[in-house]
């Protein structure tokens, strides 16, 4: 791709961007939200047409007016939100839109055999071509997407934040899949916010900033700090704000809490501290947050404040939850910033406390940029959306705020702002619990770390433990 430019409604989002990916190469594409990664990807996918510039595949210029043309030219995109139909089978999904057919009649057998073969090639045996996608896990669905790409004979596979929804051990599986693609001579364009993955997987990395090409370098010739600086254009060496100096009274206490997924949970959250929750996928991390919040309540045990039996009770008792998936669970996307920020207050009938002035101050406090109240939140970047979610809870000043993956899919700059805000909220006397799959974040932010395994608390670690110490507890002694 050379000299790619694109504007939307007069706003320039890409200008003169060039990118070359070689066969058998894993090429990382990095940049903050709004840097133009998604737009570039969509141009390659044929979703948008570029205003200027050319795309060449194997030296031949191509132009795509429809995603199908990109597909036929050998470009397969694996979006963050999978393009799968939950009610259809694996094989039907893999061959969607290009079912093997004679005279309009679908050859089911051919379709299923081909899928079976590709699954076997990837070493995937946990499901078959006839299983409904609805019944597969996220990681398995990703495999389906990859199989789809393979069945297309794709020569370029674009992966957009492929690990965003994966658990730690599933990431390893993904690495293996990416390397298989590489071995087959496929060019992989890998979009990610996570530096570690880029260093683990990529051969070269291209950095975009504000719609412009910053640099393309071999990964071996660049350091983490340099990469961050290239992306944000400033030094972010002080990654995390300083820890709490003093811890106040107990804001939430559970003893012997349990339901069908959690057992014997003992936990205390105190004013002023940030408690990190570590654990593998399936260890009950999100379930713990949902139980404390009342979304999937505890059925056993004592809790102060009184054990919530519903979200409503949890919210009324001063507990807030910043959910993992902010688009599906956190925001009403077509409503304004104001309506979203006031949602909790209105649900509780406490709108009166937040006059227009109060709201404006609040939006400035969460550093919404720009702090426009009437903007629909769907037009905001991920980081700004998350700030609106925070504002939503701050209107009712909860005693306890639970964060489930607060910076997933958020760029480096906004991430720092959110970390900073969490720390300030704690300093103002809020008790904060944070779940994160990103160990550096968890270790950098937490005043102590509670580790879960199989729905039980298996240990508590002091500030700043090593990643290894956390992993050992989370995975259990048996892992060699």
């Amino acid at each position: 791709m050379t000299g790619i430019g694109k504007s939307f409604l007069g706003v320039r989002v890409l200008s003169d961007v060039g990118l070359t990916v070689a066969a058998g190469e894993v090429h990382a594409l990095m940049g903050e939200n709004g840097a133009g990664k998604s737009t570039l990807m969509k141009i390659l996918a044929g979703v948008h047409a570029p205003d200027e510039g050319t795309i060449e595949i194997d030296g031949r210029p191509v132009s795509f007016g429809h995603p199908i043309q990109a597909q036929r030219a050998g470009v397969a995109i694996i979006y963050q939100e999978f393009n799968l139909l939950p009610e259809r089978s694996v094989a039907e999904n893999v061959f969607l839109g290009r079912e093997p057919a004679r005279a309009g009649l679908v050859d089911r057998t051919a379709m299923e055999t081909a899928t079976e073969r590709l699954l076997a090639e990837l070493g995937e045996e946990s499901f078959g071509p006839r299983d409904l996608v609805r019944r597969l896990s996220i990681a398995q669905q990703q495999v389906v997407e990859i199989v789809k790409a393979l069945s297309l004979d794709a020569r370029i596979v674009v992966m957009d934040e492929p690990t965003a929804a994966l658990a730690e051990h599933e990431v390893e599986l993904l690495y293996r899949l990416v390397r298989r693609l590489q071995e087959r001579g496929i060019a992989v364009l890998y979009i990610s916010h996570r530096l570690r993955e880029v260093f683990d997987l990529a051969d070269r990395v291209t950095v975009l900033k504000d719609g412009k090409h910053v640099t393309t370098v071999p990964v071996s010739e660049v350091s983490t700090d340099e990469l961050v600086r290239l992306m944000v254009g400033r030094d972010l060496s002080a990654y995390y704000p300083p820890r709490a100096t003093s811890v106040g009274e107990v804001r939430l206490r559970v003893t012997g809490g349990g339901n069908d997924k959690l057992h014997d949970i003992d936990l205390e959250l105190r004013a002023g501290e940030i408690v990190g929750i570590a654990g593998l996928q399936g260890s009950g991390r999100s379930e713990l947050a949902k139980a404390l919040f009342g979304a999937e309540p505890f059925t056993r045990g004592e809790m102060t404040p009184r054990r919530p039996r519903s979200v409503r009770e949890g919210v009324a008792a001063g507990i807030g939850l910043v959910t993992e998936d902010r688009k599906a669970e956190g925001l009403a996307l077509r409503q304004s910033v104001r309506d979203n920020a006031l949602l909790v207050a209105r649900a509780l009938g406490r709108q009166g406390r937040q006059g227009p002035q109060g709201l404006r101050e609040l939006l400035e406090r969460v550093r919404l940029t720009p702090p426009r109240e009437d903007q629909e939140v769907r037009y905001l970047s991920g980081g700004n959306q998350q700030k609106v979610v925070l504002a939503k809870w701050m209107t009712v000043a909860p005693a306890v705020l639970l964060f489930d993956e607060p910076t997933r899919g958020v760029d480096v700059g906004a991430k720092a702002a959110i970390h900073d805000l969490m720390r300030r909220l704690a300093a103002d006397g809020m008790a904060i619990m944070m779940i994160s799959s990103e160990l550096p974040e968890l270790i950098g932010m937490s005043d102590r770390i509670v580790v879960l395994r199989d729905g039980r608390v298996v240990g508590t670690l002091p500030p700043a433990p090593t990643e290894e110490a956390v992993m050992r507890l989370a995975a259990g002694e048996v892992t060699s």
Partner: protein
Amino acid sequence: MSESEQIGAVPARTPPFWRTRGSSPAGVVFLALAGVILIGWVLVAARGGQFLSLENLVGVQQRSAALGIVAIGQTLAILAGSLDLSVAYLISLSSLVAAETMAGRDGNIVIAVAAVAGISAAVGLVNGLVITKLRVHPFIATFGVALIIKGVLDHLYDGPAGKVPESFQHLGYDRLGPLPVSAILWAAVAVAAWFLLRRTTLGHRIYAVGGDQEVARLSGVRTDRVLIVTHVLCSLCAGIAGLLLASRLGAGAPTVGTDGGYDLESIAAVVLGGTALAGGRGGVGGTVGGVLLLATLDSVFNQMEVNSFFKDVVRGVVIVTAVAIYARRKHGRRA
């Protein structure tokens, strides 16, 4: 503690085959159908009647044929994530076009059938184009088209018109052995639709478009084209039903479609059959069951000489209850 063994990969159970296939609750509607037949048989027998008599079975078939054919078309539209509120008026229009073109002459039958097919296809095309190209919600689009047809009907006709030749009336009244011709026609339409959905690329794409239009589009499915073709097929089904009704009446009638309530009733039958109103899930089998269930209920009421208003009440209750049961099952599985 035994938690260590669960650390590995997320356990991915391969569901048993009968669950992967039987994903539509079509089974339930046939179970309900069996129940209604049983109850009807007991009730009618208690009054000294005979419920499972040949006449009665044929009657049920006759009654269901027209609704059944429309409902098959409606199934396609609903599976594709759309719906069609214009079928009732289109049925009336088709019956009139058929009867007027035939004008009592055998020689005109072919032309008449072709004319009905042409007009139905055109209406379906308009529905499809308005929905896809003008991006009007299907509810409004097909309702608007319904109004347009209604206006034309009211403008041109005050009452029944045209005449269907005797030979064409065989379609409505004759039997092949124990089977009414109309029922065979219905079965043929149903089998064709089943085959279309199961085996053809178009069928697969109808499910895809109804399941998630964006996913389908990004997979290279020409979603607009699929929706348009689906609407043409749906309208053709309504046209066939119009022909059938014309052959029964011996003439065309401007109110035959609305009197039968074929628009909402066909949607109800589809949903009774377990097809999701949101699209992408369900099938023809369930719809057949849904139509038979409604027709059997009707037949039971007729034999019991129940007031027709009471029938409406029961029908309403049955439809809502059935869907409530599906909702429970679906929710239960997800949890």
